Structure formats: C-alpha cells, structure tokens
C-alpha cells in the first residue's frame, strides 16, 4: 500500500516538473472522466462496448415529424445539427420539441424484450403440451421456479386475497423478469444498462402507478379509494391529510424511478471511476489493487441487479396491498 502511494506522488512530481507535458497530461486526465459520463449516456447508434455497430434512426417532433435513418443523413438535411452530443435546430440552436429517436439503450431494451418473448413462448408451448404435469426441460423448470417465487414470496405475503394475487401475478412476474434481464444485459461484456436511464425506470414506475391505483379501485371500489385519501384520520383533519396523501400517491412511483436508476448507474460510475484512476495516475502498480477491487465491485453489482429487481417488485406489491386495504368487496 505505501509503495503505491509513493508511486502516485512520484508520478505527480513528474507531471509538475515539465509544464508542457503537464497540460497534455491534464487534458488526457480530464478526458478519462469526461468519457465515463459520455459512455454512461445514451447514443444515437448501436454500440457493443465502445464499438459502433450501426446507425439508428433519429425521430424528431418539431413542427411536424422528421425521420432520418442515420445521423449523417440528419446532418446533410441541414435542418438539425449536433452540438456537444445533443441535437439542436440549425436555425436558432434550440433543442427540438420532442426527441423520439431510437437510441442505444432502447435497442438493448428491445433485445431484452425479444429474449424474454422467445424464451417464454417456447416454455408456454411446452407447458401447454404437458398441462397439470411437471415442467419439462431446464428453461421451463427455471421459469416455474421464478414464477412461483414471485407469487409466493413477493406478491402473496403483501396482498392477502388469493384471488387478487392470482390475477395480478402476471404483472409482477413480467416486471421482475424484465428488470432482471435488462440489468444483467448491462453487466455482460459490451452490454449497456438500459435501466440506468430515467425514461425506462420512469415508465416502469408509471405502469406501477396504474397497477397500484387500478387494483385499489377495481377490488375495493372507487368509494374506498377516495376514503383512503383521508389516511384513516377523522374528517376534521381532511385539510391536512388529503394533500399529504395525494402527494404520497406521486412520491411512491417517483422514488421507485430514482431508486432503480440510481442503483444501476452508481455501480457503473464507481467501477469506471476506479478504472479511470489507473489512467489518471498512469501507473501499473495501482492495477494490483484496483483490478481485484473492480472485480469485487462487479460481483456486488451482479448482486444489486438481483436485489433491485426484487425490491422494485416487492415495493409495488406492498403499495398495491396497502392501497387495496382490508375492505375488499364481498364477491372477492
């Protein structure tokens, strides 16, 4: 440890000695950390790791729909141009009204969707053939284990009505598996984590918002949903309780969004920052510490990928159970 610290000081001394080398060195250093954030961001092209595979269509809504099949065709049309990795209008330098481009992270999300659809279509065919019999094959067994786990460990303890559990399990299984597959796709070599983008986690939370409130309205009635806004307090407290409860309705999906996004981004930033230190200090000696530590962090991120899929599903189940409450209509 002391040896490596000596070495850091040594390289700092070297860089301060010659000012010409210093500026070049500093610029290279700044680039390392700038590149971390550029890598973590979204791109208008399909990348595997840092390698550009193909261009992706750019879709902009700005006084009508503009569709370009690649960035170069957008630039040659002259309407829009690119400044600092973001697309702006050529005429006044403002961002377009709405950017619906297919980006790198969207493609990785599609890969996850196609993967899940292929695997589960295959399994559901097999299951249909062997109805009421044990599942056949490796994938079908794994899927049954996951589905039963989600139903019995996540949904059932939080929603006390077996009928509601059975009708909502499909949503929780889909959410759990989708988040898990997207998280793990991002940990494969060359993969990008689509869950480290606010739009994806935000739309997952939006669906959760509709599930939480929709289930409450469907199963315990709109009347008890409105009654829930009182939070169980006497009517006299309504001026205080109602705003708080309405705020709570929106804070829940918001915190779901931020939690998943921040967890998946933080791990990447930490690993890349540690690897960036190697280039920052320009020494091999640090690698003996940093590389094993990065491997440890990578394994920690693998754990976090599972835990976050679990936590997201679990929290939606808890919120749904809370919002349904214990006054379910008699037919259920």
């Amino acid at each position: 440890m002391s040896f490596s610290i000596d070495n850091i000081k040594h390289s700092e001394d070297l860089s301060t000695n010659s000012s010409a080398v210093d500026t070049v060195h500093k610029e290279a250093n700044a680039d390392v950390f700038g590149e971390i954030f550029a890598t973590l961001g979204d791109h208008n092209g399909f990348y595997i790791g840092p390698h550009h595979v193909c261009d992706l269509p750019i879709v902009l809504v700005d006084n009508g729909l503009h569709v370009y099949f690649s960035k170069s065709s957008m630039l040659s049309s002259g309407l829009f141009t690119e400044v600092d990795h973001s697309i702006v209008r050529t005429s006044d330098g403002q961002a377009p009204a709405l950017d619906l481009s297919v980006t790198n992270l969207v493609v990785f999300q599609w890969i996850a969707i196609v993967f899940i659809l292929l695997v589960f279509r295959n399994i559901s065919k097999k299951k249909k053939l062997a109805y009421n019999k044990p599942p056949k094959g490796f994938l079908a067994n794994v899927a049954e284990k996951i589905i039963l786990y989600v139903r019995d460990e996540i949904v059932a303890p939080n929603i006390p009505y077996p009928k509601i559990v059975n009708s909502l399990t499909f949503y929780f299984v889909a959410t759990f598996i989708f988040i898990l597959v997207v998280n793990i796709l991002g940990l494969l070599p060359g993969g990008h984590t689509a869950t480290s983008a606010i739009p994806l986690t935000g739309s997952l939370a939006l669906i959760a918002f509709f599930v939480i409130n929709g289930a409450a309205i469907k199963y315990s009635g709109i009347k008890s949903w409105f009654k829930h806004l009182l939070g169980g307090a006497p009517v006299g407290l309504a001026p205080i309780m109602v705003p708080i409860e309405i705020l709570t309705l929106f804070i829940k999906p918001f915190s779901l969004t931020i939690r998943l996004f921040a967890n998946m981004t933080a791990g990447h930033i930490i690993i890349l920052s540690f690897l960036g230190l190697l280039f920052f200090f320009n020494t091999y000696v640090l690698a003996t510490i940093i590389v094993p530590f990065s491997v440890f962090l990578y394994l920690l991120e693998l754990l976090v990928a599972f835990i976050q899929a679990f936590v997201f599903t679990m929290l939606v189940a808890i919120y749904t159970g809370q919002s349904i409450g214990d006054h379910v209509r008699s037919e259920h």
Partner: protein
Amino acid sequence: MESLAIAYLAAAIGAGLVVIGASIGISRIGAAALEAIGRQPEAGGQLRTSMIIAAALIEGVAFFAAAICLLLVLK
C-alpha cells in the same frame, strides 16, 4: 475561491454526509435483524425480507442526496 471549486467541495462534503447517514441507518437495520434472527431463527426468511425492504427505503433517500451531489459536480 472560484464558484466551481466551492461546488466540488460541497459535493464532496455532501457525499461524505450521505455515506455517514446511510451507513448508520443500514447498520442499525442489520444489527437489529441479526439480533431478531438470533432470537427466533425460524422467522429468518420473513425478517430478511423486511430487512431488505427497510434497507432499500434508506438507500432510496441516500440516493436522492447522492444525486444532488452529482448534479453539483456536473452543472
């Protein structure tokens, strides 16, 4: 001191405070859960689940603060 330097300093101090708060919270949860599992080993599964949920809630608050620190640096 220029304002950028102050922003970096504030972000670093903020990140440190976030770590202190989150680690106190999570360590208390861990300690309480271990004690409870020690008393009642058969309730281990249920306790572990509630422990993870409580830890996730604390982590969520900590991440709000960490995101603000990150915004200070990136702005």
